[in-house]
């Protein structure tokens, strides 16, 4: 009795931390670093903007080009009191204006209308990355029959299974992890209290780590001589649950074993990073450059793990990461181009943190000949949100909408370009009330949407080196061959790297 996808997921008891079956934390042969042939020595970071990021105020038409995007935008997003319009032109004072976010080196044009596009002024760091050719903007990303529930839509993006073709609760990247890694590997880490849905699966272990400094196994300091005896008993009890427990007991058994195992190697990553990279350790906390945020601190944890992993620290194999930033569900108080506004602060938080992170990687790699060499070339970040917002604003905010932009960032990314067309924001062609552009995959549609699975598939194929046929099996076409509405992409050949 499927009530909601959420309950379906809750029930299915799929592994978060741990598909480990069996015996001992000690003497496990996993302290060797196995490298999957697919992703190799590269890393993938997924950054989720939770709550539904307003894409129409993220990538913004600067002028009309051959169409009317700017005019349409100004009709939908007011500039008077309570308005959230981003002004085109040099800003003054509080409102910085869009010249701030107008990429200057490469043409940043809507392929459909030729309108010049700009990034939200809070994303100046992304503008620089775009200009440097390290950032791709995907426009109008969505899926058939868009759902405006946060919960349902997040699950759709996580599973990559919009209309239930696969009827799976496993994540799109989780299906890849399960195929590629064994139960004793730990290929992924979510920087949070729970494992991200996109990595959900049963075949291998994904950790949830909030902070590495707190990831040690807690012992009673009064009787240190008893620690080994306690761990031996813990191991036997959890091993029994993992081997012979049923349902949730087995799940907890597996998770506990993976946890106790990782707790032996991961905390050291924090200590090493702190001792060896104090300058960058501080930068993530430096407010003057946009640090001291949950995103910058989460990315610092990723940097610590990559720093150790690239040097071959035993027991650290993670290649896949997830972090998320909340606060995008701005039905009100969204604000416009003022640096104090909520949406502005969110965009600055994320873009500044990503910049610090890549500066850190660049510095880590400088002059090195081991795995740290060329590190910025080996890391890519994908940024996404479960949906965008309504075209027409409400009172200083926006209700739930459909298609939004995605970003792909990294030194190996063939960036400085925009893929896909800006959504049609002409309110005359939308229902004023529901106010969303319908998803369309019709080749002839000038406002053709980007199916987010095309982005996922192209990453699997070209970053994880997964063969075309395997990607197609991971992200199958929708069964109903309706070219106007359903996904008809099959080649996964978006030019990403």
């Amino acid at each position: 009795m499927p009530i909601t996808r959420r309950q379906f997921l809750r029930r299915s008891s799929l592994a978060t931390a741990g598909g480990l079956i069996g015996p001992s934390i000690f003497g496990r042969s996993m302290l060797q670093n196995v490298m999957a042939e697919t992703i190799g020595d590269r890393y993938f970071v997924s950054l989720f903007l939770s709550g539904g990021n307003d894409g129409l105020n993220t990538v913004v038409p600067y002028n009309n080009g051959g169409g009317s995007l700017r005019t349409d935008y100004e009709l939908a997003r007011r500039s008077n009191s309570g308005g959230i319009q981003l002004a085109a032109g040099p800003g003054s004072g509080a409102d910085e204006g869009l010249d701030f976010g107008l990429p200057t080196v490469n043409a940043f044009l809507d392929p459909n209308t030729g309108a010049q596009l700009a990034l939200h002024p809070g994303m100046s760091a992304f503008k620089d990355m775009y200009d440097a050719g390290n950032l791709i903007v995907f426009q109008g990303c969505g899926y058939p029959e868009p759902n405006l529930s946060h919960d349902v839509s997040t699950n759709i993006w996580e599973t990559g299974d919009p209309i239930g073709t696969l009827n799976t609760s496993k994540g799109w990247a989780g299906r890849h992890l399960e195929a590629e890694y064994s139960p004793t590997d730990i290929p992924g880490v979510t920087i949070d209290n729970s494992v991200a849905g996109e990595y959900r699966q049963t075949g291998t272990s994904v950790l949830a780590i909030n902070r590495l400094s707190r990831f040690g196994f807690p012992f009673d300091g009064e009787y240190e001589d008893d620690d080994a005896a306690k761990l031996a008993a813990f191991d036997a009890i959890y091993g029994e649950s993992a081997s012979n427990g049923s349902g949730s007991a087995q799940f907890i058994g597996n998770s506990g074993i993976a946890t106790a195992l990782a707790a032996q190697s991961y905390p050291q990553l924090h200590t090493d990073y702190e001792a060896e990279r104090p300058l960058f350790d501080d930068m993530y906390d430096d407010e003057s450059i946009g640090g001291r945020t949950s995103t910058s601190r989460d990315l610092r944890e990723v940097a610590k793990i990559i720093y150790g992993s690239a040097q071959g620290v035993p027991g650290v194999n993670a290649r896949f990461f997830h972090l998320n930033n909340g606060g995008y569900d701005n039905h009100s108080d969204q604000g416009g181009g003022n640096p104090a506004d909520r949406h502005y602060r969110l965009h600055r938080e994320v873009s500044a943190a990503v910049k610090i992170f890549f500066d850190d990687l660049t510095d880590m790699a400088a002059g090195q000949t081991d795995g740290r060499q060329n590190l910025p070339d080996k890391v890519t970040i994908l940024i996404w949100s479960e949906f965008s917002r309504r075209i027409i604003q409400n009172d200083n905010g926006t209700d739930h909408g459909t298609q939004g932009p995605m970003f792909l960032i990294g030194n190996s990314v063939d960036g400085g370009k925009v893929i896909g067309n800006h959504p049609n924001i002409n309110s005359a062609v939308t229902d004023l009330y529901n106010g969303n552009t319908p998803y369309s995959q019709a080749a002839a549609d000038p406002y053709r949407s980007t199916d987010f699975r095309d982005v996922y598939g192209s990453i699997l194929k070209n970053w994880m080196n997964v063969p075309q046929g395997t990607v197609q099996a991971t992200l199958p076409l929708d069964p109903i061959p309706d070219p106007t509405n359903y996904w008809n992409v099959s080649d996964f050949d978006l030019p990403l790297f």
Partner: protein
Amino acid sequence: MGDLNSQLSEAEARHLLRRTGFGADQRDVDKIINANETRGEAATRLLDFKVSKFRPRNRDIDIAHNKWIKFMIRTKSQLQEKLVLFWHDHFATSNDVVGDVSQMADQNRLFRINCKGNFRTMMDEINRDPAMMDFLDTVRNRKEEPNENYGREVKELFCLGVFDLDGNPNYTQEDIVQTARAFTGWRVNSKDQAYFDDGRHDKGTGHMDDPFPERGPKVIYAGNDAFGMNGFDYGAAAGTAYETEIDHVMDAIFQHQDSAQRNTVAHWIAYRLITFFADPEPETSYVEAMVSASNFDTTFEISNLLFEIFVSDEFYAPLTDPTKLSVKWPVDYVVTTLRLLRMKLKSRFQFVNGGSFDEIRDELTNMGQTLLEPPSVFGWDWETSWVSSSTLLARYGFARDIIAARGRGKTTFRPDRLFDFAESPAVDPDIVVDEVTSLLGVDEGFGIGSVERTALVDYLTDGGGGLIDFSDFETRDKKLRGVVGLVLQSPRYMLH
């Protein structure tokens, strides 16, 4: 279905107390057994608690949170607090958004007062609850720019669910938009009271002030079996008494029928309460039986529904089917442990007096459950979603803090106060395991099995077997603390 005249065994009594409260204290078990209570008698008595109007009030959200925890630890009406937790998750309002601890405390009391009462009454109060009105933007919902945040969640989460028991959608986007119009104009005054602002209300097509003819009449649920193809025109039902539109919308919601002509609200709420108290994966027939037996689809009396759940066979199934065990919520794990070990938290910051000395709110946050700040309007994810490497380490850390709580007084863990092994030169380790697992309620049903038992005995004897000399304080103290910690950290203790 179950036999309400069936007399409770000790194992059943313990299970009932664990699910309806925080752990099974032997004194409460004895009360049931000594009175030879039946399922029905015990359920009636548990549901017959006097409603407390406690509200966790403080300027500081941390202190308010910890006051609630303290109240849970000492309350005699544990079922009431379990229900308040359920409704807090159901109407998952966060102070992160509301930013007003006093309003949060008022909402908490609203849950306490209505927790076993009438669900329709509760909804009518939630519609006008200042914390909720701020949380889901009712106060920012006005005719010029309707805000559909509350209109959506009142259907998706509070009353109907996205899909029914057969997987069919319960409502459309148009229903949400039309519902949002009913709530335009509702605001909160400076005394934290809801009021209706006529000038901000969308009076609708036909009214002389109506500037939005394209929105059409205020009709919801067109095509629903309860209302036919034309749906329900709540605008017409309210007439010019515009402030009653939200009540007419509620009337329609409470009459809504799902794809199998079942009352949708009744089955949604029953499904939610069943997954909370009885069975994480209920059969549709079980949900239907509970609604039918309690007449919840006509009366919406929560206590009647709970009674039927508490006497049903499915409620007691975890005693014979380990797949029906449920993962304890973090707050349940914490409060149960403190109650069973007869321990109190220390100071107004309410910390465990050992180990990390983190305040209890931080410990719960690390376990994935910050009360009064649920992660989103969906509340918390239950069952195995509570379990990750990060949250498990937080539970292990709490267990460690408990056994490291030393010194004097009620905030410390003193094995000699709980177990009578002092001055014993030759103790059978099996008896130690018996006493510890019995105290912590993991000795029956699918309790600690032979492999776990052997592991604990090996731990107590350092692998040597035989009898233990507990006359030595250090050995006794070390091993008793250690064995309690191991049981608290065990998968079985995480379940109930």
